[in-house]
């Protein structure tokens, strides 16, 4: 991330890849930088229209990133068009932020990584921290000059994405598999997060042998990420995960696990972490597949 030249905080310096995280001060200073594109991605898909960081473009996780008819992501051609429309070139530093502790920002960053976009960062604390600090938001949608983004040769599904069959192997072989949902979802008492309609999944429970660590344990109350030492103690100490072993993370549809994927990959430097985006809405609904409860 060569364009980032600033006095990095002591907290960030400790992370395995400090180049992929910036703070609100940095974003405020660089929001007009032509080498940088600020991208807002939210669960509340109308929130961008209420107010956003000046110059930030909006990427809607459903409309912009999902295929219309297959449960899958857009293809490389559509990704190139999406980037072009939003003024993103192959060397543009994309800084993601959003609501819900950056779930969807991490998810969109992860999708950008699926297409091999290398210049990426998360704004620590996301939209809530920006607003809590009383920083300026605007209503007018950004309209950056269009670019031509080269169509990626492939999607990096094998590198950072896990499918059902691969997750099944991890389950059967008792490899590092982390369920990041709430306690109630993991135990099978509910099928969606608390405070959401309980819909979309027939069975409650978790993938056999998955260990449980809610995504929220990696976040502070102000929505920022916890420090390197705190994260290391949690994932490598308490959960005894090995940084060198392959890891698969999952949740319900892949957004909360994107948060944990980001933490393990970039903040702690785990060697190979994949996000099982089919997650519980696939596993919990699939015919003939075992689950565990409790």
């Amino acid at each position, binding site marked *: 991330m060569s364009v980032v030249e600033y006095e990095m905080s002591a907290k960030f310096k400790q992370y395995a890849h400090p180049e992929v995280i910036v703070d609100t001060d940095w974003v405020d200073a660089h929001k007009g930088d032509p080498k940088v594109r600020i991208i807002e991605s939210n669960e*509340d*898909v*109308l929130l961008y*229209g*209420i107010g956003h960081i000046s110059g930030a473009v909006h990427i809607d996780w*459903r409309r912009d990133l999902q295929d219309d008819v297959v449960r899958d992501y857009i293809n490389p051609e559509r990704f190139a068009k999406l980037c072009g429309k939003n003024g993103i070139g192959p060397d543009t530093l994309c800084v993601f932020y959003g609501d819900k502790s950056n779930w969807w920002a991490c998810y969109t960053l992860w999708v950008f990584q699926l297409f091999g976009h290398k210049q990426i960062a998360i704004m620590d604390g996301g939209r809530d921290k920006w607003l809590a600090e009383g920083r300026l938001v605007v209503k007018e949608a950004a309209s950056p000059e269009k670019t031509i983004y080269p169509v990626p040769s492939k999607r990096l599904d094998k590198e950072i994405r896990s499918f059902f069959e691969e997750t099944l192997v991890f389950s059967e072989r008792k490899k590092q598999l982390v369920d990041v949902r709430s306690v109630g979802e993991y135990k099978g008492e509910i099928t969606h997060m*608390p*405070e959401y*309609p309980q*819909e979309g999944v027939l069975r409650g429970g978790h993938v056999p042998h998955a260990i449980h660590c809610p995504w929220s344990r990696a976040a502070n109350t102000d929505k920022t990420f916890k420090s390197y030492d705190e994260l290391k103690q949690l994932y490598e100490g308490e959960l005894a995960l090995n940084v060198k072993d392959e890891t698969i993370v999952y949740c319900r549809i892949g957004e909360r696990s994107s948060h944990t994927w980001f933490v393990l990959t970039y903040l702690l430097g785990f060697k190979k972490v994949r996000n099982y985006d089919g997650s519980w809405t696939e596993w919990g609904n699939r015919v003939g597949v075992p689950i565990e409860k409790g």
Partner: protein
Amino acid sequence: MLPEKLREIVELFESFSEEERRESLIAYAEQSKQYEPLEEEAFDLQDIRKDEECADSVGLHLKVKEDRRVYFKIKLGPHVQTLTRAMASLLCEGLNGSLLEEVLELPQEFIKRIVGGELYRVRSQTVYYILTRMKGICRVCKSRCAVG
């Protein structure tokens, strides 16, 4: 059959492009404070709670006039989603002045015509939440009237 004002709103939204639809929903969401109850205001029935499936508390306040026409006020917690805020304003505007029975008999299919297929897919249950709560408080009101 939709009450006149609600029918106009539905038809207006149906004429919108997806972009206009989103902009209008945001505008309605931003008006939601207009429908908050005033401190000194009195109501016939109030239903203030935070349900499991909603991100924050939603308070419904209902007045029923002698001609059985209903008037809603709604107070939303700060974490309520934009779409739910929009539905609160829109339903207050569209239903205030309707007969109690008209609200109870409303078919819910009109919600999808307002929200549109794209947003409906994202939150297919959430969009019905405010209407369900409105019908709920009307149902309680009707049964109390019957008992009284």
